[in-house]
């Protein structure tokens, strides 16, 4: 299943190969179809800002686990060890940018004790878009390595039952280790394909941080500038659509699904939501109160459902961290 105009927009992107596009692709090391898409979304000036922004490594950020330690105490402990931290309250009240680290942030006693999680700033703001109440049933559909699962339990003080699902055998070990390390108990981990779960209308709140092509984390993985072809985008788009349709099935009436993808590709964001809105009648999109840019409204001649304006995007050159798409879908009563 895919958006009826998916292949058309991707062909348009692939066909645009003027000297400006080729020049930028060569200078910054991207595939030309990617540059054509950025120009379509951002125009010339901002595309240059994005390409320059993607040249700088992603800042290290951590999320303090205030379920185990007051954050000011963690700050003191890490600062005594020579770390320099700056709070990033617009992303999360528990988020810090690590300005200076005398040793790896993943190798301190405080890390082993579960006092913090090494997590991208945009990634940690996604969970704040969810409806999180204590005493409810919550599903994290693609949970490893556990950044968002541990954050959900942190915000619900381990008092909601979280069902975390992960298909990948290697990554599920990290998920379990992180949930345990950070001191949580109120979870069930399933090693399963999230499209084959028996949980019809079961959950009060669902997070689908969908598998993506990773176009939002080029600052962390510069190989991504070249590693994905147009067919990879088509493939991942269809998986994302399938997963979101399933997520809607697993949600109780009246409950919400937060869809996220760490990608700048509209094919993995706006087009997924646009297609699902056209297929399912009993859903609507809700505004989310997180500090990010608006989703795009049109793309290579395709006008999206106006509801999509309520979805958000994190751009590396605007918000300063990884690229993400996030949208909140409500299953109507």
């Amino acid at each position: 299943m895919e958006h009826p105009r998916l292949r058309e927009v991707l062909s348009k992107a692939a066909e645009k190969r003027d000297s400006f596009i080729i020049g930028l692709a060569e200078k910054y090391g991207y595939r030309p179809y990617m540059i054509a898409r950025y120009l379509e979304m951002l125009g010339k000036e901002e595309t240059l800002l994005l390409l320059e922004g993607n040249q700088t490594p992603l800042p290290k950020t951590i999320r303090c686990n205030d379920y185990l330690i007051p954050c000011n105490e963690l700050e003191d402990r890490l600062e005594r060890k020579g770390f320099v931290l700056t709070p990033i309250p617009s992303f999360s009240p528990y988020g810090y940018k690590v300005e200076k680290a005398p040793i790896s942030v993943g190798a301190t006693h405080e890390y082993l004790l579960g006092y913090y999680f090494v997590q991208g700033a945009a990634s940690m703001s996604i969970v704040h878009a969810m409806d999180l109440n204590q005493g409810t049933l919550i599903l994290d559909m693609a949970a490893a390595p556990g950044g968002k699962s541990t954050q959900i339990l942190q915000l619900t003080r381990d008092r909601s039952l979280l069902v975390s699902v992960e298909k990948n055998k290697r990554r599920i070990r990290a998920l379990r280790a992180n949930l345990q390390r950070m001191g949580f108990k109120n979870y069930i981990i399933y090693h399963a394909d999230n499209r084959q779960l028996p949980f019809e209308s079961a959950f009060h709140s669902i997070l689908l941080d969908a598998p993506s092509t990773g176009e939002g984390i080029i600052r962390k993985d510069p190989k991504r500038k070249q590693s994905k072809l147009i067919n990879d985008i088509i493939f991942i788009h269809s998986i994302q659509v399938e997963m979101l349709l399933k997520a809607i099935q697993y949600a109780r009436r009246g409950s919400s699904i937060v869809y996220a993808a760490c990608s700048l590709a509209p094919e993995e964001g706006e087009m997924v939501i646009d297609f699902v809105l056209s297929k399912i009648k009993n859903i609507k999109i809700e505004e989310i109160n997180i500090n990010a840019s608006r989703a795009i409204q049109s793309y290579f001649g395709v006008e999206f459902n106006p509801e999509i304006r309520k979805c958000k995007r994190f751009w590396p050159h605007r918000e300063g961290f990884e690229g993400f798409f996030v949208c909140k879908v409500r299953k109507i009563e």
Partner: protein
Amino acid sequence: MNKKIRKLNKKEKDLIINYLFSINLEFKKINCIIHNLIVLEISGGSHKDVFLPSKTQLDFLLKYNFIEKIYSLGLYFGLIGRSGFEPSLPLAREFAPLCSKECSLNCIFLSENSMKKFLYGKQVLIRESDLSCVESGNVLVVSHAREPLGWGVVRRLQNKYGHSGLLLTPVKDLGWYLRRGG
């Protein structure tokens, strides 16, 4: 790969009761815990995982009957393998608040230097700045601030000159999360 969730059998219960007695956990607490433990058994697996789930978790399991895909749930209590019961790191966190310098539970309090060695999975020769509640046997290892560090076994050593000291051998330490955790 068949998975099964069940209550502990008598042999498994005895193994865990013996371990909890060995660290001097109160009988009342043991009694409270032991009947609520469950085992996740995988046919052909090398060990069995033991969990302490909540009632909500058990209700969810029963309602959806999706047992064959379960990977972990609730408080991970430890594992039962060929060499007996091995307590988990989450269990160390659970019991750490029970450690006190009055030694109601068999704990060992490590100083910063000893802690570093222990968290690398190395044996630690106990110094004056450390405090051990026992001279031999199973211990819960914590920092002086009662932060859980893992599990170990203490024994008394004597060198050829007649000097003696305590040696702590790690069973499971927090460094495991970095070395093998995932």
